């Protein structure tokens, strides 16, 4: 499968990031119903679903090269976005193996993995054609890579990655590569337990959602990954909306008007998957971020109208927590023109196969 990469697009400065029509149609739209409902919504991460992004366990799309470059810029400015506690070395190798095996099997035109053996101590050669990388190394020997294995492979993957160590009937966020997050700080949160790092999330604690999710995840099985979608909104197609760089992107929130909301306001959807890792027994938590402007989304009539209705029904605590307070009214005003009040079918599918002209 060939992918038409857009290596020159940017996620900062002039924000030249754009979605092709195909990218809009495969966007993992997260709202099946008109009203907002908070739920854990975990399901098996099988190779199918209402969007093409579910067809492969680790989705690679037209933004791959540009995203990897943006990640490198963020890491150059703040190396603390990659954190690995010392006891996580086995989990680092698990992550490298999982990503290399899946990417090379699902995207053979772009990635190859040549192994002389499967055990630690075997020579492996990794070829990443889009980024022009060929690396020979000894599996299990970190000194044969240019950096530690987790950083090495996650620099070459879209999205963020956290690894949770499992002990004492709890999960601890003991490693992460986090450069495109929705306003949480890995450097602050690293080492925290499941309840601690979810501490700031409003409403959900009282309903026992996190206790149930934790019990479920502790039993996550090797070979049976699960997924869920999460969402928030960003001004401009910016990957790095971290608290670290909040002074840079915070002012953008005050720049939204009902006239420019269509271009400026982006729905930010995270495809979160969870994988039991084989050697370390840790859990890998990839968070793959998809961005689409309100204008992009409104080209799918069902999505434009649905988004208007969902955003109108958000509880105020959630509006505050997601940082929407300042610009939500302008976004709703812009979206209102795309909602004629007709009944919308349940489900997240776009309901069309081609988009009209922009």
């Amino acid at each position, binding site marked *: 499968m060939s992918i038409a990469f857009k290596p020159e697009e940017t996620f900062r400065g002039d924000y030249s990031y754009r979605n092709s029509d195909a990218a809009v149609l495969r966007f993992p739209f997260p709202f099946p119903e008109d009203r907002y409902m908070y739920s854990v919504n975990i399901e098996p991460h099988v190779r199918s679903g209402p969007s093409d992004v579910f067809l492969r366990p680790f989705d690679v799309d037209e933004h791959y090269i540009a995203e990897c470059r943006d990640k490198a810029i963020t890491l150059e400015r703040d190396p*603390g976005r990659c954190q690995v506690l010392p006891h996580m070395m086995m989990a680092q190798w698990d992550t490298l193996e999982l990503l290399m095996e899946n990417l090379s099997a699902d995207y053979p035109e772009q990635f190859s993995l040549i192994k002389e053996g499967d055990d630690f101590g075997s020579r492996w050669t990794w070829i990443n054609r889009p980024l022009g990388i060929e690396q020979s190394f000894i599996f299990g020997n970190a000194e044969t890579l240019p950096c530690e294995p987790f950083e090495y492979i996650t620099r070459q993957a879209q999205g963020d990655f956290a690894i949770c160590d499992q002990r004492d009937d709890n999960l601890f966020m003991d490693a992460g590569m986090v450069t495109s997050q929705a306003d949480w*700080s890995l*450097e*602050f*949160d*690293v*080492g*925290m337990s499941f*309840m*601690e*790092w*979810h*501490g*700031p999330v409003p409403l959900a*604690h009282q309903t026992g959602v996190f206790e149930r999710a934790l019990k479920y995840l502790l039993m996550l099985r090797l070979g049976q990954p699960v997924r869920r979608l999460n969402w928030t909104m960003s001004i401009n197609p910016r990957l790095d909306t971290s*608290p*670290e*760089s*909040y*002074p840079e992107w*915070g*002012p953008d*929130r*005050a720049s939204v008007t009902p006239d420019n909301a269509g271009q400026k306001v982006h729905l930010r959807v995270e495809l979160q998957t969870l994988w039991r890792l084989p050697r370390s027994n840790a859990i890998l938590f990839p968070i793959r971020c998809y961005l689409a402007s309100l204008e992009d989304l409104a080209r799918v009539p069902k999505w434009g109208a649905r988004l208007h209705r969902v955003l109108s029904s958000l509880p105020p605590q959630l509006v505050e927590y997601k940082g929407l307070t*300042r610009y939500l009214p302008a976004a709703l005003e812009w979206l209102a023109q795309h909602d004629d009040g007709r009944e919308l079918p349940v489900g997240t599918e776009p309901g069309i196969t081609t988009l009209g002209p922009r």
Partner: protein
Amino acid sequence: MLHSDIKSRPTYTQLEPDLSGSQHLLIVEGDTVLPGRLDSLAGTFAPVEENLHTWLVGTQAGGLGLGKVWRLPGVADVVDAFACATRGYGIGDRLYVQGTEPFLWSVAKAAAIIGFSAEQIHLHHAGSLRRRVWCTHCHTVTEDVTTSIASCAGCHRHLLVRDHFSRRLGAFMGVMVDAEAPGEVPAVEESFA
């Protein structure tokens, strides 16, 4: 402000000896000792006095009935004493700490580095509510924060002090309060005196 709905916010207990422990180490921040408090601690720890060591930090106050007593000038000396521990600590040992939050977490972190488990460490908050604040933007730690909004000692931004707490850093999170509208700083309150 010692209690919060945020689950990362630690909760603290009264100190009492865990009788299942083998050796007991009590560390007290001198500033936080109210008159009569050491005598009261001695009474509480009497059942384990034979296996009790007490480190009194920054005080000349008495230590009668607190087992073997050491005096240390400051919290940095406590951290050093753990880091250079020549006598190994055992898996059955217990650590009890009394002090302000920055003190408690400096000690707890030093103990964790040499292997103490959270279950072996009992923390009792006493004295001021002042906070250690970690700046999310420049990563500088600002000590002795008593206000809801504080100036960062590193980048001088106005930081909103949140209840989100990191045990690893022993600090609360500080986030720029006027990033979205520069200069719009809400009224500063004395929240953690």
